[in-house]
């Protein structure tokens, strides 16, 4: 029988237009208390963006730019010391709450895996090490898929074939599989319920280049087939170039530029994005490439104004005083920089 027949009846909201995820002015800070003094690490500070239906939205940024915190906040995995200080996260399938963290547990249980699933970096952390893969599939997906146990198993086997895994892996424990196989099993696990929205946080970082290309092709193929939206997080611009439809560039807790992937690579506007792209070495090209002066700022004590200004070649006087807004300079190309978006007038 086909996988389609095994999928449960469509309970998705009728609204098929508009973005599937809309994040507005999201601020999530880590609070630390030392001797009664509160300090805030502003890991996500005023981020707004939309993810459309059926697109792969890539989120790029170096370590400690806040991209994992942003993803955690969107997924509702908020534990102290992380706090959501302001802003809303609106999923099309979860209207009216302003984020998973504000929704009641019954709603969250309904949404999870059926509408929202995750592919995480360490597949060992997703798969329970003391349970066989078959049991993991039951744990994660069985509550969301109607039908008999036999039908469920057939659907799982059919779905595993999509990621080129034999049915025999269902009897294996995670440690018996190679890294690439585990990551493919995780992808199968995350997509079996045909969710509307998939969060992929560095899903290929731990893999070899050859396996990585394979896994990326699989994520892309499944995404195109079931029409999900994907929020794809990685620091590797090469990966983004291959998979993302649109790209958002993060620097020190803020979004600094957003455009379609070809546009970002062809016409990067923000000086940080320009550096990121021009510093990538290429095979068959001997142009000397430089690193950026200075170091990424501490999020506990970020520089005032634009957080990039101490390292920026285009820095002006205004940059250290005011925070640049994300302004659309061209259709579908937003950038937060006084020097290039023409917003210097107060």
């Amino acid at each position: 029988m086909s996988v389609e027949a095994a999928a449960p009846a469509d309970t998705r909201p009728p609204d098929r237009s508009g973005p599937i995820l809309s994040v507005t002015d999201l601020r999530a800070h880590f609070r630390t208390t030392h001797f009664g003094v509160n300090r805030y690490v502003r890991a996500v500070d005023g981020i707004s963006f939309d993810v459309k239906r059926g697109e792969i939205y890539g989120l790029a940024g170096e370590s400690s730019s806040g991209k994992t915190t942003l993803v955690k906040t969107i997924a509702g995995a908020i534990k102290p010391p992380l706090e959501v200080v302001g802003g809303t996260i609106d999923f099309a399938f979860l209207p009216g709450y302003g984020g998973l963290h504000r929704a009641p547990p019954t709603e969250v249980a309904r949404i999870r895996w059926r509408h929202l699933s995750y592919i995480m970096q360490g597949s060992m952390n997703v798969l329970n090490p003391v349970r066989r893969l078959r049991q993991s599939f039951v744990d994660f997906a069985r509550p969301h898929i109607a039908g008999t146990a036999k039908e469920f198993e057939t659907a799982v086997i059919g779905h595993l074939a999509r990621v080129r895994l034999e049915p025999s892996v269902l009897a294996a424990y995670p440690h018996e599989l190679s890294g690439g196989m585990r990551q493919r099993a995780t992808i199968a696990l995350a997509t079996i319920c045909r969710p509307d929205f998939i969060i992929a946080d560095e899903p290929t970082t731990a893999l070899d280049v050859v396996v990585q290309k394979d896994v990326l092709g699989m994520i892309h193929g499944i995404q195109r087939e079931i029409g999900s939206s994907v929020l794809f997080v990685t620091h590797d611009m090469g990966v983004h170039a291959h998979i993302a439809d649109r790209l958002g560039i993060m620097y020190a807790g803020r979004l600094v530029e957003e455009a379609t992937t070809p546009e970002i690579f062809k016409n990067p506007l923000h000086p940080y994005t320009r550096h990121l792209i021009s510093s990538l070495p290429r095979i068959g090209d001997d142009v000397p490439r430089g690193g950026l002066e200075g170091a990424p700022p501490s999020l506990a004590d970020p520089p005032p104004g634009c957080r990039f200004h101490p390292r920026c070649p285009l820095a002006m006087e205004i940059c250290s005083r005011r925070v640049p807004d994300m302004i659309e300079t061209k259709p579908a190309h937003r950038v937060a920089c006084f020097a290039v978006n023409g917003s210097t007038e107060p």
Partner: protein
Amino acid sequence: MSAALLEVSHVGKIFTRGGLFSSRRIVAVDDVSFQIDAARPEIFTVIGESGSGKTTLSRMILNIERPTSGALSVDGLDLTTVRTNAGRMAFMHKVQPIFQNPFEAFNPLKQLDRYLFMTRRRFHAEADQATIEVAVDEALRNVGLSLKEVRRRYPHELSGGQLQRVAIARALLSNPKLIVADEPVSMVDASLRMSIVNLFKALRDDLGLSIIYVTHDLATAYYISDRIIIMQKGKVVESGDARAVLNAPQHPYSRQLRAAVLLPGVAAAGGPVSQPANVFREFNASE
């Protein structure tokens, strides 16, 4: 040849796992030979995926691991003869390591300048603090830092890129001839990665150091290396001039590696962003 800085001849390493009756042999490195000339400093790159034996090879060059067959010698010194503490110090004078993760390489509770002073004191019989500080400052200046920036700082106060520079400066303090760098940039922020890679070039050109650069990143390997070897399952499958090998790989495995590199140029060219795996179509068609 007598002028070889590093001579690796038919080196193999076999790990034996299991007990007396059910032992399993894992061939990590299988008959690897190459030579680095003392008169011509170069960046020699070892490329391979995880499990290809590249880290085992670098550990054998550092004399942390003993080869099960073959011989290694550095500057005419056979590594199997290095047995005493004094011999080890003499060896470390010539060869120094740089590790992958700078945050793990340093003790988080120890100030960085103390590391540098200690290293200098250990390798050179200099009792005078002022002389040591001059030497440390010079090593730090070679990597684009200065003693003023590092003094009394703890590892968490510096970025990954700066910390990796301190690790390189520490390696320079013994005036080595060879540096073995195992994945030195994979944990460094994207905006700082190229400055570390450029630093290796500068060390080769200005200080005449040879560097063994172990990596899986073909793009940076192409950017800095003079010669490369490509390893698969412990064997060298292709070796030669870096440009020539990476521009036109011959061995099927090297070709596969080369084809798997995700080139950012694809997106700039405005072409199809990626090809979703064709398997699905085949699978659906057969369904």
